[in-house]
């Protein structure tokens, strides 16, 4: 009972603090503090609810238990992280996005190909591509190569569509100016059109980060060596060791947000000139 009251009190206090803070003028501090307080409140509530209602660990472990497990098994977690996130997701991400950008530049020269490929690409981007995971696992074996292949297929089409759209994002005035300078096709591409396409390319890259991790993890459900985040999650669920599952989820969450945040930082550095970035500074 005490725990539940404590939880409610924590909630009330967190909300009140946020309410006060959100009335302050917006600044770096409040924009960081308010969400952090909200998150902390949720974690405290979780802890209190689990203890207050005596929820068995098999169903939902408390955050402190998860943290203890996380600290105790960093070795396994790191090994899984390297297998899934670095070898599987990152390799596939680089290959898939690179190939998509190159193909986009190639088809950009032909209106015919663009008109044909864009609707098809848009269509494919909406399909449940994770479904190809069992096929690719069959083709490329159980190790990380098949996971990278799934990631390549998943990130390819969103990336292609975004890049092609981005390359079209110059108006005729700008292109005419390049022509009056006597710029060649490649000069126009590198000095005008690729920079102009950057916001679109980064939009695609950001969507692709989430897809990449999902692809690598889900592909492990169809077969994997005895390491990897997807493998660990599905076997630990079978053994009902939920604290390890949750620790693995924490790793996935950290990897996902770190990956996304990294791309967002690069975006900020490279497209500082774009209105969407300037407005926020």
């Amino acid at each position, binding site marked *: 009972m005490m725990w539940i009251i404590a939880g409610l009190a924590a909630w009330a206090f967190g909300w009140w603090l*946020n309410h006060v803070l959100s009335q302050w003028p917006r600044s770096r501090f409040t924009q960081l503090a308010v*969400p952090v307080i909200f998150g902390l409140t949720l974690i405290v509530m979780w802890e209190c609810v689990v203890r207050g209602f005596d929820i068995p660990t098999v169903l939902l472990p408390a955050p402190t238990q998860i943290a203890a497990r996380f600290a105790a098994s960093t070795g396994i977690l790191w090994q899984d992280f390297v297998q899934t996130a670095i070898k599987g997701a990152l390799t596939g991400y680089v290959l898939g996005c690179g190939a998509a950008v190159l193909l986009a530049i190639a088809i950009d020269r032909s209106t015919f190909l663009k008109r*044909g490929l864009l609707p098809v690409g848009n269509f494919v981007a909406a399909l449940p591509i994770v479904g190809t995971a069992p*096929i690719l696992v069959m083709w490329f074996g159980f190790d990380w190569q098949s996971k990278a292949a799934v990631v390549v297929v998943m990130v390819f089409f969103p990336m292609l569509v975004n890049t092609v759209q981005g390359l079209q994002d110059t108006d005729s005035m700008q292109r005419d100016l390049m022509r009056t300078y006597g710029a060649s096709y490649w000069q126009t591409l590198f000095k005008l059109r690729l920079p102009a396409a950057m916001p679109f390319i980064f939009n695609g890259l950001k969507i692709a980060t989430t897809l990449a991790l999902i692809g690598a993890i889900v592909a492990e459900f169809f077969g994997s060596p005895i390491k990897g985040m997807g493998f660990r*999650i599905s076997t630990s669920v079978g053994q009902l060791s939920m604290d390890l599952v949750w620790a693995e989820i924490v790793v996935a969450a950290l990897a996902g947000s770190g990956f996304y945040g990294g791309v967002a930082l690069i975006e900020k550095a490279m497209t500082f000139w774009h209105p969407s970035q300037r407005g926020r500074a």
Partner: protein
Amino acid sequence: MRNAIPVLTVVAVLFALWYGAAVMLNAPWAYDKAKRADVTLGFSELVADTWSQDKPKLPAPHQVAVEIWNTTGEMAMGGRAFSKRSLIYHAWVTFSSTMLGFALGTGLGIALAVGIVYNRTMDMSVMPWVIASQTIPILAIAPMIIVVLNAIGISGLLPKAMISMYLSFFPVVVGMVKGLRSPGPMQLDQMRTWNASSAQTFWKLRLPSSMPYLFTSLKIAMAASLVGAIVGELPTGAVAGLGARLLSGSYYGQTIQIWSALIMAATLAAVLVGLIGLMQRITLKRMGMAE
């Protein structure tokens, strides 16, 4: 319509590539068989063999088409459209959890968006977490959600729908927040000069002007919801649904079955997203907002 020829060309090229790849990938097995039977394969025999193997590495399109017809149209004509071997039955299972998750996700998304637009504290504290929630590969938790909900006695549709919900609420929140904020200061001032209450402003100005944004996000949400439903069927050893077909196909090496489930899922996605597109066109036309 002027896009028809390029699109058809691209699709034709894709099919040609598919047939070519089928020959290449299945050739080793064909040579292997021929070697054991002590015959040499000519080119046309090789092609014929690679396009008609039982468990090919890559089935040719017509094999997949035949398999789909055998498990849908033919069974339907035999009056067994909903037998457990029929792909219609499995598609129906996946479809129902997709729809439930989609409805839940849309409801949650709209509710959150209204809260975010009308409450400054919620805007500042919840919105960053909504965005952060999508950088977490939620599908990884899918098996756990299902096992945990099973343990407390909830099974069947709901656990799968929860995963669909988690994936589909995000585009709706983002789109609706943008949409509800889309009326300009001029329009909001106009409502104030008419002495409209905030409920009236919501129903008569904000909600109608958010419709184009809503439909765009609904399309994304629907596609995401289907992915969630399929993945939700994977780790549970589910016996029904397109995801279960994918999994059992991969266990027994039934590539044709995997591909037909995959094509069925793609068709389902295309139909559902297309339906929303149709609703969008009709609604926006009646509201006088069509481009």
